[in-house]
C-alpha cells in the first residue's frame, strides 16, 4: 500500500472553464458527507479511466483546506502531454463518478515563518490558492508575485487581487512586466520564507537568486510536478515478482509495473517525493533519470531509479520489485 493512496470515491459537481487553457473541477464525496480536511499546498492523485487505460495524475487542491464539503482542482490543458489533461477537459462531465486519493502535502507552509513570500508561474498558482485560504484564517502575513502570459490566461488573478489587493502582484509577460526578484529578496524581514511553484526555469531562477543573496535553503520551498517523459519502449524484469513487462512509448515505468499487477509504492508520481525509489539489481544500458529526488551521485551510481518519471534505454533492466 502506498502512502496517500487511500482512495475516496467522488462525484464531479462542477466543471468551470476559466480561459482557453484552464478548467476547474469540483468534487464532492460520492457517498455524501465530508471530505478530509487538508493543509494548504496539498495535492490529490486523480484516477482517470480512459478506455482500458488507467491514468493517475497529481493535481494541487486549490479549495479552502478547512471546507470539507468539496475539493477543487484546476487543470491546464496540455495537447502535447500524455493525455491526462486532455481527458479531463474533453471526457469528464458533471455527474461523473471518479476516484481520487487522500490529500498528500509535499508543499506545506512553514508555520514558523513570520512572512510567506510566494512566487507563482502560470498554473503554478493552484497550491497558493489553498495556502492563502489557510493564511486568511490565521491572519498570516503573505505576499504573492504571480507571473502570467497574458491577462486572458491569468487564472484567479482577478479574484486574488480583489480579495488581497495589497498583497497580490500580477505580472503579464505580454506587457513585458517582470518580477524585480533581486530587489524583492534583498528587502525581506527576518523570518520570511519563500515558496515557488511554476516552470522549472522560474524555480531555478528564484532558488539561485536567493542563494546568491545569502538565503539559507531551509527558507526556500518549491514544488514542481514533472510529467513522465515519453520515450522508446523497453523491457523491464521485476525480480521480486518474477514478471517481465514492456514499457510503452507513452507509458511510465511505474505505470507499466502497475499494469503488470505489481503493487509498487508511489505518492507524487512526479519525481519529487521519493516514495517510489527502486533498487536496480542489474542493467545493461543507460538509465535516463528525470527525477529531482535522487542526488547526482545516486544517479551516477546506477543503483537506484525513480520509476514514476525515469526511463531506460538498452538491453536489460532488472529491478528489485
Amino acid at each position, binding site marked *: 500500500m502506498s502512502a496517500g493512496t487511500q482512495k475516496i470515491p467522488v462525484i464531479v459537481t462542477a466543471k468551470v472553464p476559466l480561459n482557453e487553457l484552464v478548467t476547474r473541477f469540483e468534487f464532492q464525496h460520492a457517498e455524501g458527507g465530508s471530505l478530509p480536511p487538508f493543509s494548504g499546498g496539498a495535492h490529490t492523485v486523480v484516477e482517470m479511466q480512459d478506455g482500458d487505460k488507467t491514468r493517475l495524475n497529481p493535481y494541487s487542491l486549490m479549495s479552502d483546506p478547512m471546507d470539507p464539503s468539496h475539493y477543487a482542482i484546476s487543470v491546464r490543458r496540455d495537447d502535447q502531454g500524455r493525455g491526462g489533461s486532455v481527458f479531463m477537459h474533453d471526457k469528464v462531465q458533471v455527474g461523473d463518478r471518479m476516484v481520487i486519493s487522500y490529500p498528500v502535502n509535499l508543499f506545506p507552509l512553514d508555520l514558523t515563518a513570520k512572512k510567506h513570500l510566494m512566487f507563482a508561474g502560470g498554473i503554478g498558482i493552484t497550491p497558493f490558492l489553498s495556502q492563502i485560504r489557510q493564511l486568511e484564517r490565521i491572519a498570516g502575513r503573505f505576499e504573492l508575485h504571480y507571473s502570467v502570459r497574458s491577462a486572458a490566461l491569468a487564472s484567479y488573478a482577478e479574484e486574488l487581487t480583489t480579495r488581497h489587493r495589497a498583497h497580490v502582484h500580477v505580472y503579464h509577460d505580454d506587457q513585458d512586466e517582470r518580477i524585480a526578484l533581486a530587489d524583492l529578496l534583498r528587502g525581506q524581514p*527576518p523570518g520570511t520564507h519563500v515558496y515557488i511553484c511554476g516552470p522549472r526555469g522560474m524555480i531555478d531562477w528564484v532558488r539561485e537568486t536567493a542563494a546568491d543573496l545569502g538565503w539559507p535553503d531551509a527558507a526556500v520551498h518549491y514544488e514542481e510536478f514533472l510529467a513522465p517523459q515519453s520515450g522508446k519502449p523497453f523491457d523491464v524484469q521485476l525480480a521480486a515478482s518474477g514478471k517481465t513487462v514492456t514499457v510503452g512509448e507513452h507509458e511510465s515505468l511505474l505505470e507499466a509495473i502497475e499494469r503488470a499487477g505489481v503493487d509498487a509504492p508511489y505518492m507524487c508520481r512526479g519525481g519529487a517525493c521519493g516514495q517510489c525509489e527502486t533498487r536496480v539489481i542489474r542493467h545493461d544500458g543507460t538509465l535516463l533519470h528525470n527525477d529531482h529526488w535522487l542526488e547526482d551521485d545516486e544517479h551516477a551510481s546506477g543503483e537506484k531509479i525513480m520509476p514514476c518519471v525515469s526511463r531506460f534505454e538498452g538491453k536489460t533492466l532488472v529491478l528489485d520489485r
Partner: protein
Amino acid sequence: MSRFTFPPSIPSRPVYGTLAPREAAQHLMVADAEGAEALLDLAAAAPEIMAKAHVIYIPRNAGEALVEKLRATGPDILHVSPSYLASVPRLRRVLSDTVMGAQVYLAGTEGLIGQAMNEALQAGIPLAAIQTEHRGSVARRVQCVHCKGITEDVMTDPFVCSHCGLNLFVRDHYSRRLAAFQGVCIDAEDPGEVPEPVELYK
C-alpha cells in the same frame, strides 16, 4: 590561548564551530571577552565584509586592547557595551531591522552565544544563517531547577545557587529556551554531604 575543545557529551549540549565569512549584504557580529579574537580572525580572512558589519562587543575582563584591534578592522558600526544585558535593546533593534540573507556571527562565552542565539532565532533569523565560535572562559550560565534563578559564570561543580543557596550539581543538560545549563541539588537526600567543588574541565 582562547580556544578550548569541549569533550564529547550528551546531544543536548551545544557544540560550536569556527566562524567563516559568507556572502551577504549585512553581517551582524556579537562577541564578548576573547570572542573578539574570533572576529579578528574572521576579519583577517575576509577584510571586505567588515564594511558591512555591525559589531556589538562586550569586553568584560579582556581590556581595551581588543576594542582597538576590532576598531582597526574598519567595521561599519562598532558598539562597545558594558554588559550583555545592556546590549540587548540594541541587539533587538538591529535584528528587527535586518533582512533575510543577513549573516549572524556569535563568539565568546557560552552564555553570550546562547542568549544572543535566542534573540536571533526569535527575530526570525534562520538557524542556518547563524554561526558560533566558543572562545575564552568555559564558565557556564546555569539555571537552578528548584528556584529557577540563574547564576552566571559558574566555574565549579558543585556550586552554591546565588538565589536560593542550594548546593547544585552542574549538568550538561542544556535549555536552548533559557540559554542555560541545568543545576540540580546534589545533597537532597543527605543534606550537608557535598563533594569538594572542582573547577569545570580541570
